């Protein structure tokens, strides 16, 4: 049975910093397509459009009929563990620090054999006996898809498995900065991270003279510390990074300015500038101030730094004309987040992008339902970290628009005219 994770002991300053290493990250283009679905939380295998053959590893043609019309089919991951090994030696630095390492061959119900990491609670493989397991696809530290087999039914402390934790960013015992603890979304996030067992939740507070209802109660929750943070002010960001930057394990950037204007209905650029200043430049300032320490600490304890979360908007993908300048600022932030993801990759820090639809707050009062409750958004963020997912589209509107965007961004652009 998995040992329950313990709170990380304080760092011994005499010991050298352990530099993060990564599992091998090169993949073929077909495997990258597989990784893309895993990044969005789906477990699919390649399937032949013409004959239905399921195959793995990803190929360029069907092994049964040689068709090149290959699609992707969601699979349950159910299968039998048919053999296993405990690896005591590896040539790769990342794994040298992680042996012994359990690996297994699983015969999936779909009739393909897959090589997987083995969760510590999987029963021992037997050649002549069915050992059912559940195979899951997760992103590894290199940000590429890898398989892990879990026991057939849940076990106590299952999420605390050493290899599973390499693929996820569970907030348990982690130190979390929420850049805006004041907004409805911020308050919900603070509460959700406290509930998820975070060690410390720093709640960023801007303009302290304006405190909304509920904030007082949130700031008194156990493990919550209110910290001053003005994202428009480089010095404020630097000061906070100077005091807690070396401790933050998960940074959630939810601060935003949200106004509801297009181009023609408001003269001037001040509002648009204010949106960009927080939504885009705020992210840039945070990334420059907090990024280096987050990267440096990615392997330094049993509960190392692990993730950076951006609360973006589904309108980053396709503009909502009635909130055009807001959409543009979120599109800018989305673009910057891709660079951030690329720069964080070398340390194995996961950048999670959240694309919600309209959130039920003061700036969407005139939008019709369905709207996403702040608590639901916060729950989705924590779940994404626990599941190790890279992009999420929480809520019905986001799901609807994301589906349409995947089908045709050009068609969606026209549909947005009437939203």
């Amino acid at each position, binding site marked *: 049975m998995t040992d329950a994770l313990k709170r990380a002991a304080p760092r011994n300053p005499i010991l050298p910093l352990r530099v993060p290493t990564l599992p091998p990250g090169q993949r073929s283009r077909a495997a990258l397509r597989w990784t893309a679905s895993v990044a969005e939380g789906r477990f699919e295998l390649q399937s032949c459009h013409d004959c239905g053959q399921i195959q793995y590893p990803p190929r360029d043609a069907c092994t049964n009929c040689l068709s090149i019309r290959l699609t992707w089919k969601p699979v349950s991951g159910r299968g039998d563990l048919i053999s296993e090994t405990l690896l005591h*030696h*590896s040539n790769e630095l990342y794994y040298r620090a992680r042996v012994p390492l359990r690996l297994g061959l699983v015969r999936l119900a779909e009739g393909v054999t897959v090589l997987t990491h083995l969760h510590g609670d999987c029963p021992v493989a037997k050649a002549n006996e069915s050992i059912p397991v559940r195979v899951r696809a997760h992103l590894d530290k290199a940000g590429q898809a890898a398989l892990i087999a879990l026991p057939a039914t849940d076990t106590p402390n299952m999420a605390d498995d050493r290899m599973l934790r390499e693929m996820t960013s569970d907030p348990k015992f982690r130190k979390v900065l929420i850049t805006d603890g004041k907004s409805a979304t911020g308050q919900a996030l603070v509460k959700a991270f406290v509930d998820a067992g975070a060690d410390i939740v720093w709640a960023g507070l801007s303009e302290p003279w304006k405190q909304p209802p509920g904030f007082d109660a949130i700031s008194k929750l156990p493990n919550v510390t209110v910290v001053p943070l003005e994202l428009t002010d480089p010095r404020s960001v630097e000061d906070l990074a100077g005091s807690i930057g070396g401790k933050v394990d998960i940074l959630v950037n939810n601060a935003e300015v949200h106004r509801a204007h297009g181009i023609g209905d408001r003269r001037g650029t001040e509002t648009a500038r204010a949106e960009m200043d927080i939504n885009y430049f705020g992210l840039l300032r945070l990334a420059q101030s907090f990024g280096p320490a987050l990267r440096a600490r990615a392997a330094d304890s049993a509960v190392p730094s692990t993730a950076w979360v951006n609360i973006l908007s589904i309108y980053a993908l396709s503009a909502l004309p009635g909130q055009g300048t807001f959409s543009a600022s979120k599109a800018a932030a989305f673009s910057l987040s891709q660079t951030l993801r690329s720069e964080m990759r070398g340390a194995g820090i996961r950048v999670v992008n959240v694309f919600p639809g309209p959130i039920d707050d003061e700036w969407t009062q005139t939008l019709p339902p369905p709207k996403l409750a702040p608590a639901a958004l916060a729950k989705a963020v924590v779940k994404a970290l626990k599941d190790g997912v890279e992009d999420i589209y929480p809520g019905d509107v986001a799901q609807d628009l994301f589906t349409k965007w995947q089908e045709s961004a050009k068609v969606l652009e026209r549909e947005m005219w009437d939203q």
Partner: protein
Amino acid sequence: MTAAPYQGVVIATPVSIPYVRYSTKDAHWFLARALSALLKTSGLKKSDLDGLGVSSFTLFPDTAVGLTQHLGLSPRWLDHLPFGGASGVIALRRAARAVQCGDASVVACVAGDANHVDSFRANLANFSRFARDAVYPLGSGGPNASFALLTSHYMQSTGAEPADFGKLCVAQRANALRFPSTLFKKPLTLDEYLNARPIADPLKLFDCVMPCAGSEGFLVMGEDRAKRLGIPYARILGTIERHNAFPEDPIQNRGGWAMDQDHLYSQAGFGPPDIDLFEAYDDYPVINCLQFEGLGLCREGEAPAFIRKNTFTIDGSLPFNTSGGQLSVGQAGAAGGFLGLVQALRQVTGQAMKTQVENARHALVSGFGMINYDRGLCTGAAILGRA
């Protein structure tokens, strides 16, 4: 249908360039030395070689093509053999047909690899597309984990014990101590084998080959030519090859030999009881078991009992891997696919010196190569006969 016999074609001139654990030299250097040794031993001139077969993992970015210019050869027949452990047998059967049909008159077959510090790791990382996508990222670090998985399954389904594998390893080491160019000079006891450091359960240190650098080679030519040169030669009595056999098996517990052994023995005109020695591909002991079974020395799943019944030293009931095999000589990359064939050639031509098996008339050689994803894809076997 049985393939036509290799009428009038022979194999000659066994050459091994001594192995070294690490070398600063490139594959080209080792292959050049093997070719040069082939010429020196046979008395042929470089211009006499009109066919060339090459197997190497570390020749990149060159192939056999680049090697012709690198070494100043102008062959009219050229073969690049990316079959790893099966490359020796496959090189032989192709070269033999080329000579038999007149496409070439003398084919030099060479295999060799460099082993720079860290080049083994770099090769593993890009061994195959499937390895890069679905094996290497999981930390399996090359063939150890793949063979551990096959070994574990094989042991559970057949009742094979570590001591069964150990018996083969210990016998091979005893053989190696009589072989001049082995990298392992110390005897190995069963206790040492059983108590070695674990590598990937159930595999321990002495189950795994040691990567090194070196090269091997032989010549294929018409019998008349060999006679004129006055060099010892052997006949090619039968050969088989197979790739990606039994893809529907959930895990590999048999190789392509099981599909083709009837062809091999019908071409040779005799069966396993007439085999005097066996040079198997032994990168891990479990693969020896699949070869005993696949080549009809025992029935499927009965290799453990076969091992318990037989002895495998040079004077044993089945002289086996008489040079020590890769487990005791070292694995010089693709040369590992030639090691057994070259030693079998020494045996049936009476050139095996201290490792000579008495009255060696028929030598069985087999190869196994390329763990592309979860199993080895290439298998081959040949029977060489005393001329």
